[in-house]
């Protein structure tokens, strides 16, 4: 009788390129990115951090609705998105709005999603994505389907989906990675392990030492990546994408990260389940600080660059929130109209009733 758990678990080592000091520790894995691309990555991370801060403020003023803070997870979110092509398909979780924005979702629509307005989910045709999934893990099974569809159509694209550490406990998670594996479908499954599923620490979520190792049972590749290192996340996603479009099947990528803020802005209080020491420990790994140091050492980033992005972000946000606020209020007749291609008789009747009510 031979057990292999220890052997398997010890195989999963965290993949890192930039350490906390912004120094390259893994030169061979350094992705082939131009100076302009490196700067663009930084620009997006800074912009997204500002967007997060402003979104929190707007939520507190009652000008936004549901909002799940993103600070801390920029490298995981934007590093992976940066490896995508325009025709790749994103199936995000509820915190993954930044990936949608950088893939082409207009900012005002992201705000409308937050406000609970259906127009926020009426994506532009050129954006290949679903609106953020609310049911934990549901996107994983759907990603297997999108990926199989891409494969059947003979396209050189991938389906990429995101969940968190908690999401890996759902049946849908296992079903999704297993189906994609069974069909060798071009899917990339990202688990942003930010240590807490609302309040429950990952240690209580599973007895597995890593979440990446869950790939083994599905017979697919898996890797654990430093989720605070944008270059490592980018490199891992790009490699997964190459494998996927070459017919080598799906990959599970666990990014080790941390959300600096609360779970959502709906009353979550992280001090109930996280210590200040832990927060401080993770803030030292801030993906922006690390990447900024790296770029500064290469003379690619200055305070001036940073301020320019901050101003640009603030200006865009101001315009977008105004546009979102100008969107006409939803009416029950709008909601009825979105139910079916052709309204069934009960809804035709109700449409008339509500039209009359709304005309008063």
């Amino acid at each position, binding site marked *: 009788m031979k057990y292999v758990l220890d052997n398997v678990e010890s195989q999963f080592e965290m993949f890192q390129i930039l350490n906390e000091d912004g120094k390259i520790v893994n030169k061979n894995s350094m992705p082939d990115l131009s100076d302009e691309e490196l700067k663009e990555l930084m620009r997006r991370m800074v912009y997204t951090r500002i967007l997060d801060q402003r979104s929190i403020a707007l939520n507190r003023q009652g000008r936004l609705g549901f909002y799940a803070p993103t600070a801390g997870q920029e490298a995981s979110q934007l590093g992976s998105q940066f490896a995508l092509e325009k025709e790749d398909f994103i199936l995000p979780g509820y915190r993954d709005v930044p990936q949608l924005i950088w893939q082409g979702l207009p900012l005002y629509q992201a705000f409308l999603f937050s406000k609970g307005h259906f127009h926020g989910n009426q994506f532009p045709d050129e954006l290949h994505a679903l609106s953020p999934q609310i049911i934990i893990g549901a996107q994983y099974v759907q990603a297997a389907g999108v990926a199989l569809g891409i494969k059947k159509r003979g396209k050189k694209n991938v389906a990429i989906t995101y969940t968190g550490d908690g999401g890996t406990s*759902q049946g849908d998670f296992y079903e999704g990675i297993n189906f994609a594996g069974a069909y060798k479908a071009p899917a990339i499954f990202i688990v942003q392990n930010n240590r807490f599923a609302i309040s429950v620490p990952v240690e209580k979520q599973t007895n597995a030492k890593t979440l990446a190792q869950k790939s083994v049972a599905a017979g697919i590749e898996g890797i654990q990546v430093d989720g605070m290192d944008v270059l490592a996340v980018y490199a891992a996603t790009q490699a997964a994408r190459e494998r996927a479009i070459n017919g080598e099947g799906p990959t599970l990528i666990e990014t080790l990260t941390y959300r600096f803020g609360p779970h959502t802005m709906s009353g979550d209080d992280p001090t109930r389940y996280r210590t200040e020491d832990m927060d401080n420990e993770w803030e030292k790994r801030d993906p922006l600080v690390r990447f900024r140091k790296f770029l500064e050492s290469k003379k690619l980033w200055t305070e001036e660059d940073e301020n320019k992005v901050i101003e640009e972000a603030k200006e865009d946000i101001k315009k977008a929130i105004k546009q979102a606020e100008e969107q006409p209020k*939803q009416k029950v007749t709008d909601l009825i109209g979105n139910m079916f291609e052709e309204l069934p008789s009960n809804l035709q009747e109700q449409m008339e009733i509500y039209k009359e009510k709304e005309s008063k």
Partner: protein
Amino acid sequence: MAQMTMIQAITDAMRVELKNDENVLVFGEDVGQNGGVFRATEGLQDEFGEDRVFDTPLAESGIGGLAIGLALQGYRPVPEIQFFGFVYEVIDSISGQMARMRYRSGGHHTAPITVRAPFGGGVHTPEMHADSLEGLMAQQPGLKVVIPSTPYEAKGLLISAIRDNDPVIFLEHMKLYRSFRGEVPEGEYTVEIGKADVKKEGNDVTLIAYGAMVHACLKAAEELEKDGISAEVVDLRTVSPIDYDTVLESVKKTNRVVVVQEAQRQAGVAANVVAEIQERAILHLEAPVLRVAAADTIYPFSDAEEVWLPNHQDIIEKVNIVINF
């Protein structure tokens, strides 16, 4: 007597039963140290320890299966589904498994499980959190479905549910959690499952509702009073089984009925109530029984809740129709 919000009364009911019966276990996502996302289990883990009150991994289906398994080991599980909008993830455990445990084993096994969950709308949750899915549950034979509308009843009904030897779906309307306080006795008492309650007496029309809509009915009744219309308000409190004795008694008194539900109109609890009334008391009716319900759409995005949810004005409109019929 203490003044409590409904959520405090719910916590108190679990505290009473955790004390009373060592087989009671409370678990779910974030219910431990965090005390639940609505704080329904606040302080219970500190008081009773992690053996009795504990966090589960994030999987509703797992929570349902775990409850069934623990019940088979003689425990009395009180699992929480964080929002009832997530119930689809656990529908097999509830409808496919626990509802038929007694039936398919000829009484050899039972499922004394109380599934608690916040439901209903009006508090601007994200998509798929809010909904009124009690109709789904009421259609499943083998389940009791309880929906309190006051703190007093929430505590008494929850204690009854936990002591019940069959599965009970206990739905807590999110908008009622903290919207008002009411008197709640200390210690143990029960409110019987399957019994409706006349919340306000009246002679001209009967309003039948449950959950948050009871309060919309009371508000409508208050307004109607100004127009000289005396409305009786019947709170079903349990939507499966329904207490038709109380319903019919009121119908025979007022001869006019409006049934109110927050859920969409089609195939809901109200439709069932209307059907039973006409079968059992058609000769007592002076007007057709009308319904107030939401439009047959998916539950709206949060910014449209106000225009979509039924309210006291919709009730008054329907009352005027049955009164002037």
